[in-house]
């Protein structure tokens, strides 16, 4: 229990003092994970619309595949991405391994099936008559899709938040492709640690393996705080937009 109490205190202190290391780690986390979620949303939501509007053979099977994708093991995703982008891999010439860009790619793969799956469920629940009404009013396919997304907003946003939850908390994939790298920078003020590919989520197991459970818990709390603020933001925006 002392660990918990100490973890909370440590989290508060790190936040109040704006610890530069924590800030740099948090910055990478937010940068990478929000990019991944935004990219995944931007692709998965339109695909969900397409999926629901078109009928094609093996649709049910494809849905099962998508749902299976919600259970992609992050480490495996990380490894596969790694193997493809590593120096000797087919895309090794891009020299992306151990960069933030490749972390975005890996997390994108994790967020994508969740956002897709939940969005499909949400869009499925929008009555077809909404779509038809839009068409009779002269809407183009694109405009109809937008409208349906608006109607399914509550469910889709839940899907995006679930996807965000997954990637913000995820370790396996970004650890593998990103390497959890931080530099000790020698500065006039002394040595400070700066994150290159270290995130709050990957910093947690590192602290644990160094035996600093309280620090791990503190980092976890900070991560949760960030997730919470993002959620709060979304909920406010959602109410402001009046969609759900």
């Amino acid at each position, binding site marked *: 229990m002392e660990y918990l109490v100490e973890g909370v205190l440590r989290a508060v202190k790190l936040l109040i003092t704006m610890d530069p290391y924590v800030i740099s780690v948090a910055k990478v986390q937010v940068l990478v994970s929000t990019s991944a979620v935004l990219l995944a949303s931007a692709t998965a939501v339109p695909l969900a619309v397409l999926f629901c509007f078109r009928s094609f053979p093996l649709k049910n099977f494809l849905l099962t595949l998508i749902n299976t994708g919600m259970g992609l093991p992050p480490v495996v995703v990380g490894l596969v991405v790694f193997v493809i982008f590593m120096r000797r891999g087919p895309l090794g010439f891009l020299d992306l391994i151990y960069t933030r860009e490749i972390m975005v790619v890996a997390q994108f793969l994790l967020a994508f099936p969740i956002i897709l799956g939940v969005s499909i469920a949400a869009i499925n629940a929008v*009555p077809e008559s909404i779509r*038809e009404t839009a068409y*009779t009013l*002269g*809407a183009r396919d694109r405009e109809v899709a937008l409208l349906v997304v*608006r109607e399914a907003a509550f469910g889709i946003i839940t899907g995006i938040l679930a996807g965000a939850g997954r990637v913000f908390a995820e370790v396996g994939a970004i650890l593998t492709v990103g390497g959890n790298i931080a530099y000790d920078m020698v500065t006039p003020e002394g040595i400070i640690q700066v994150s290159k590919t270290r995130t709050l989520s990957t910093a947690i197991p590192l602290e644990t393996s160094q035996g600093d459970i309280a620090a791990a818990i503190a980092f976890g709390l900070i991560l949760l705080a960030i997730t919470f603020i993002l959620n709060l933001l979304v909920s406010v925006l959602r109410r402001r937009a009046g*969609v*759900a």
Partner: protein
Amino acid sequence: MRSIVRLEGVSKRFAGKEVLSGINLEIREGELLTLLGPSGAGKTTLMRIINLFTRPSEGRLYFRDRDVAQLRGEELLKVRRSMAMVFQKPVMFTGSVFYNVAYGLKIRGYSRAEVERRVDEALRLVGLAGYEARSAHTLSGGEAQRVAFARAIVIQPELLLLDEPTTSLDPISEARVHSIIRRVKELGISVVLTTHKQHEALALGDRVAVLKDGKLQQVGPPEEVIYAPQTRFVAEFTGMVNIFEGVVEEVAEVCRVRVGQVQLEMPAFEASPGERVCVGIRPEEVMLLRTDVPLNPRHRNVLEGVVEEILPQGSAMLRLRIGSGGLRISADVPRHVVEKMDVREGGKVLFSLKASCLRRLEE
């Protein structure tokens, strides 16, 4: 009058089932055409074909003399954008009334000011001025119906398609919608309106098209459809309850048809003696005759019968079901007449099936 839409031999099959067959129909500029038919007749399907929503399985569809049945993409959109359709059960988009009404304008790229002006105008037309900010999902059924109207009218279509717009409305709301439709017509917009209510089709339509089982039964002005039904179905659906099958006995200046034990005299039609035909008369054209005065020799087809049942018919009329010579005949008689003549269930009555009102019906 120029035609705005013309259908030539349009058929539609769903999974092998023929839902519309060989429809030839013209919608004229500025007219209000009502499409009358029972549930499942294919009214909605026909509307969807006109709105380029459903592709006909066969036949041609002209919009302003251009064959549009196979259009796609932007071309199709352009034609569809000159029409608007209000569905049988309108759905509201999540959002304000303004959002709903403005939708068609926004996707057409109108300026904010123009959108506001037009939405205001449309809401005024349907009597919902000031409702802009209301959440559309909190509207009552009648209000939602009118918002759906405004949403369709606001884009100033050349042709407005209304699928059973008053079906679920009470008489007061129905009257309001009717007056809105009349105002829309005054704006020069052509209208097609489907309904299963005979009185609505007749009251609103410049012309009435009667549809049954995917086939057009009759198209014409309202009076023609009521008083000169061509088919048994049109007759039945417009309230001609007395329909008998009989055999032609004589074809001359008048025709004589035997129905059961009775011989009926009726206006001449083309047939040969011995042919089986179907004849009918509207219940309000059956005339009760007084028994206390001598029979006027003008009366044709005078029959005696027993009143089997008296039912209220609307509020002013009573419907007598009369058994006579093996026939069951319904007569709609004003209440006060029934009272004055002291007609009762089980009593005898004398009545005439006016020869000029008897009509031959195709099956």
